[in-house]
């Protein structure tokens, strides 16, 4: 499987990173001490957000002086005249994924320097620890920096802002659902100008897609998804405001960097109505010729990832891919996220992962290990969420995708 290549390829750098994490004085990612309850932060990112944070304190937007890296840019300034963050009106049919990303890609197993047979048809890893010309940062540096953009206080603030727009619910096709999709698009246009936004609309449904275009057409595609719709009479901040908003915030963090592979972060509609949004998307993706072997390497599903009142910091990861589970484990260690990972099997757990596995794609499903008693209840509010836990879960997801997609530098 092509992802194995990607995994092996990154294993080398991760192994090195592991040494760094354990043996160096590099600060760990600090997700802060948010926990449940409380307010904090503003609804919009501040100036510090636009500067790649040099340290790893997720609670701080300040860049440590000794970590300022050449190439740092002010994303807000660059994005002021950039229309990539706005909706792509040129797409004639909003129902289909963007053609450029759905074109089947050449089989990446034909990578160079294959001199030693690898298990399961894998190709030997490339040396990705060497940064591309003009950028002295290693992939690990970039990922660590990227993770610093996912801050507890800001995630909490954004979550509460979404909640304020969700009354009485975000039921599919409702005015509040529609408004929520527009709100996400709009703040992303300002805060993540390098992510191309698109509404995927059909029959009154609407998915929201953010794309970070890769540099290597053969490197494949990675998708992260969550659903923004809710059942009725609940603001549904855990199910799945946590995942849906998290998808956007991951896209924002990722968008400040360049990767070999394409990355898409997709907010789905009508999961509660029967996985309608994701099914539509996955079917269109497959119909466009995007094959599991050469195109979509993995779909990562985020659904209910913020309920952890006891601070267990335990994340369940369902996947049939041992490589992907191992990658999660390694990323968790490398970046000092401090999560306890509970691994499980299966590619369909009655969430949007099913839509992708139905099409033959490899999936991961990240899910909280503490059941929320507020599930589908009016009490599923921001007050019940553990924002430190949510932040860590977003960080591990972002790190896995970034590692697999291979960061090659900061966005211009």
């Amino acid at each position, binding site marked *: 499987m092509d992802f194995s290549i990607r995994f092996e390829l990154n294993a080398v750098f991760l192994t090195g990173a592991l040494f760094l994490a354990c043996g160096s004085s590099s600060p760990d990612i600090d997700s802060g001490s948010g926990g449940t309850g409380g307010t904090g932060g503003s609804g919009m990112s501040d100036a510090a957000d636009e500067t790649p944070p040099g340290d790893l304190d997720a609670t701080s937007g300040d860049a440590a002086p000794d970590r300022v890296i050449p190439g740092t840019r002010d994303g807000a300034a660059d994005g002021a005249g950039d229309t990539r963050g706005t909706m792509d009106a040129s797409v004639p049919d909003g129902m289909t994924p963007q053609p450029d990303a759905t074109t089947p890609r050449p089989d990446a197993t034909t990578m160079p320097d294959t001199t030693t047979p690898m298990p399961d048809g894998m190709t030997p890893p490339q040396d990705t620890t060497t940064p591309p010309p003009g950028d002295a940062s290693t992939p690990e540096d970039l990922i660590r920096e990227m993770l610093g953009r996912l801050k507890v206080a800001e995630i909490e603030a954004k979550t509460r802002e979404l909640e304020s727009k969700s*009354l009485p619910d975000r039921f599919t096709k409702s005015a509040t659902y529609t408004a929520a999709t527009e709100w996400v698009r709009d703040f992303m246009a300002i805060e993540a100008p390098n992510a191309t936004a698109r509404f995927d609309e059909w029959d009154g449904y609407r998915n929201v897609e953010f794309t970070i275009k890769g540099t290597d057409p053969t490197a494949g595609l990675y998708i992260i998804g969550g659903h923004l719709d809710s059942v*009725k009479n609940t603001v549904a901040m855990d199910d799945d405001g946590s995942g849906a908003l998290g998808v956007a915030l991951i896209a924002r963090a990722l968008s400040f960097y360049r990767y070999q592979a394409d990355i898409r972060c997709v907010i789905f509609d009508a999961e509660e109505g029967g996985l309608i949004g994701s099914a539509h998307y996955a079917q269109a993706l497959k119909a466009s010729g995007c094959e599991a072997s050469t195109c979509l390497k993995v779909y990562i599903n985020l659904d209910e990832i913020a309920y952890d009142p006891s601070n267990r910091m335990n994340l369940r990861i369902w996947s049939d891919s041992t490589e992907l589970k191992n990658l999660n484990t390694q990323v968790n260690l490398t970046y000092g996220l401090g999560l306890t990972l509970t691994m*499980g099997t*299966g590619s369909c757990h009655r969430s949007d992962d*099913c839509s992708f596995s139905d099409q033959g794609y490899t999936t991961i499903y990240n899910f909280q290990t503490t059941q929320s008693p*507020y599930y589908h209840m009016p009490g599923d509010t921001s*007050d019940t969420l553990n924002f430190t836990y949510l932040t860590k879960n977003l960080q591990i997801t972002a790190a896995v995708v970034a590692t697999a997609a291979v960061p090659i530098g900061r966005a211009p």
Partner: protein
Amino acid sequence: MKRAGIFAAALVLAAPAVALANGRYPAGSQLVIDPTNPQHLAVSATFGLLESRDGGKTFGWMCEAAIGTSGQQDLMLAIAGSGATVVAMFNGITTTSDGCTYRSAPELANKTMGDLAWSRSTPHQLVAFWLEFKAGGTFGSQIVQSSDNGQSWSPIADALAPELYPLTIDVAPSLPSRVYLSARGDRNKNFGSMLMRSDDGGATFTSADIPETEEHRLTYIAAVHPTDPDRIYLRVFDMPGTVIQMSSDGGRTFQKIFTGTEQLLGFAISPDGTQMAVGGPNDGLWVGSADGTNLARRSDVGATCLTWTKDALYACADYKTAGFSIGRSSDSGATFEGLFRYDELCGRAAACGGSTTARCSEEWELIAPAVGATCADAGASDASTDASTGDTSRDAGPTVEAGPPATGGMPPPAADDSGGCTSARSARGASRFGPLAWLVAVALPLRRLFAALKNKQRSSRLRASREP
């Protein structure tokens, strides 16, 4: 997400958090017995309503579309003194007297009902509450009552305080004026739970904080003692397992009497008030004195509901492990006689006729493989052919009655018509399965269909499993 699906994966994982969905689908979450007719049983299942009118020998299935539920929660049930089955949902309260025709209470239309209760001594009187989320983390909620077997409802008092998140309500069996309400407090209470007691039927309350419930450890009323209105049992949603607390002084003080390894979904007190039973999918069944002492594991049955009558202790369970879906014990839980298994259901029977038979047929296409039902189409009509009415529509509009029960064109079932594989009593109902019908039409893979089927409300299940 669809909770139903976690079940399968949880079984595979067998990790501590499997209680999340153990038995989630298919499963029963509440079993109630008619206070005036012990032959009449009703079970809230994750896939609809089951009713028996022959003491549990046979059950008929009513699909959610026909009941009119929004389908995103487990039903909360009561059987009123008239024999009417009262169903509280996230979109109001509906009642049925014949198992076919459902009448929704218009005054509660689209209200998210939180809980439903009644007293054994006055079963024609019921109480319930609705709730909604307000801006700023506050809630709107109000207790309502019915004095006519659930047909009509009116507020008992003004809305509850906005900082309260009501969870469960119950009435003391021996003192109908004694009403208990459990609720979660707000940030000022560190999201701890409190028990509120009323001695005037729910008009006014006094409250006390329940210890060790802070940080969203929600507390559900498990039972009020049948003869002592001051003794109340609570289930605290805690990690890793449910904690049973008891108050013997009307909610002034509390004591822990049992802690499960995971969630405890079943709780019951014997009618004479001497014994208690508690259990869950991973804890087996424990029975002891009603004062919380001498609790001992009596069997391995992983109960998802418990109900104790003078005749027997009833339990819901996963038939794949317990051998039954609904069982009955005559020796206080030591052994169980299986009454019914879900795979014995024949959901497409056309007992009620009409277009809702077609609606239930749609659901049955999904439910049958999930519950393992293999029976032939026991009297069911396909959507295209209802011989009794000539109705060929799958798309009839919402027809749950609001107001007086409809009688025309709906032959009521015989009193004992639920025998064998026969009794899906369809009623006219609003379908929440518009998308589902589409899914069926395009024949998506079965697991997709399952995923589309169930959005179940977990905490209502926690609330609902209680002594009736």
